[in-house]
């Protein structure tokens, strides 16, 4: 059962309504290209074959704000505060309409990123750390947060393998270097610093993502198994 415990406020009055969340909320966090979706794709069949109903959710997939956010990112007028709040709208729409109902229905919710990536990105873009934390204060504390940790040195070959550097993943909206590569290094270094700083604050379970894929999956399974009902 996921406890009705929030980082800040209970915005949708779950306590008042004495909601019960028999599901589990499991978060996989980590920077771009660290291998989050690869791991989720390996965990899902494992959980399902063990008889657990799984729902997964990821950023920019909300019905309300997903399409508008993607479109806004294609243009050249999206400012950093607007970007942060667009992401917050997307998150809260998924939180209220996907995550909470699934937890109520007893699903294992595997989420590809949660509020932590959003906080890291916002702070790197100059947002006030207290401001962004207070907005995401309405988020439920997950049953577990697995942080796939990697160094910038080990991250670069993965990005190359995947086909190169992406505009947003390189923080090119801030132009942190003369080209994609240098901006990527500077941007990701700053992001990783934010993640590391959050590790203790939010109780991340750190997993070394530079290890082979199979090994990372095993570690995740070991972490998740005791959390499962009758696990």
């Amino acid at each position: 059962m996921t406890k009705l415990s929030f980082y800040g406020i209970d915005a949708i009055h779950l306590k008042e309504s004495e909601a019960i969340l028999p599901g589990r909320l499991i978060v996989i966090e980590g920077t771009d290209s660290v291998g989050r979706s690869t791991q989720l794709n390996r965990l899902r069949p494992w959980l399902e074959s063990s008889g657990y109903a799984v729902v997964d959710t990821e950023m920019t997939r909300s019905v309300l704000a997903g399409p508008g956010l993607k479109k806004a990112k294609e243009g050249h007028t999206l400012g950093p505060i607007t970007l942060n709040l667009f992401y917050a709208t997307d998150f809260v729409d998924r939180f209220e309409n996907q995550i909470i109902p699934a937890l109520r229905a007893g699903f294992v919710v595997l989420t590809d990123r949660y509020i932590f990536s959003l906080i890291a990105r916002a702070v790197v873009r100059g947002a006030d750390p207290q401001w962004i934390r207070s907005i995401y204060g309405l988020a439920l504390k997950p049953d577990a947060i697995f942080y796939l940790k990697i160094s910038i040195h080990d991250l670069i070959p993965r990005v190359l393998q995947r086909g190169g550097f992406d505009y947003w993943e390189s923080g090119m909206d801030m132009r942190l270097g003369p080209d994609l590569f240098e901006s990527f290094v500077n941007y990701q270094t700053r992001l990783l610093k934010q993640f590391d700083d959050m590790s203790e604050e939010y109780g991340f379970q750190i997993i070394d993502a530079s290890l082979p894929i199979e090994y990372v999956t095993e570690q995740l399974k070991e972490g998740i198994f005791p959390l499962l009902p009758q696990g």
Partner: protein
Amino acid sequence: METYGLHRYPGRLFIVEGVDGSGKSTQIALLRQWLISEGYPVFFSEWNSSPLVKQTTSKGKKKQLLTPTTFSLIHATDFADRTEHDIIPPLKAGAIVLADRYIYTAFARDVARNVDRHWVRELYQFAVKPTVAFYYRVPLEVSLNRILGGRTELKYYEAGMDLGLSNDPLESFKLFQQRIVDEYEAMVGEFGLTVMDATLPIPDQQRRMREIIKPYLRGVRRVRSSAQESAWAGLAREMRPSQVEVSEARGREQ
């Protein structure tokens, strides 16, 4: 990111607040004309008008996808876009920015929808504190008569139907508006809003508004005639909107 009350810009920001039917839009339009004719560089921004966010908001409203929290967030996103594009740059450049509705609209409506009072104030921390924030105070019966006089249909969120206060849209609207008024009244002291008597004749209200802002105009650089021309042209464009723009402007007020 600078937070509320800490921005230091050479420009001036004057905003109007009040319920629908308080006459605030008329007053700020008159103020705008006067400031332009006095030669000041004037920029105007209205609630819920960001081109980046508009589609998402109208989809949310049309399909009734919005909860009180996402209603609050999408309006904050819209406001952030206008702050970053239409409000901060002209203020930095020393211009006068006028806004029809500001963060206090969000505080009143969102809290009327049971959004946490403190949370929504934190959400708008990035907003620039206005030089003067006018609140057009009007008895509820007067504003209701003004808006309901010429129309038959109230929209879902506009009437606060999402709150489940009443199944009758008109009744729901009245209850919702009362909550909004209560929130505005509580904010007068909290944010130092300048209260205006919206039952006075229009010219009297306007005279008083100009008297109040005059001292704040000292030191604002006036523009030469070409810039004045373009400000007039902008105003004229908005005064003669096409049909499409008219219907959009209507949608905006909710």
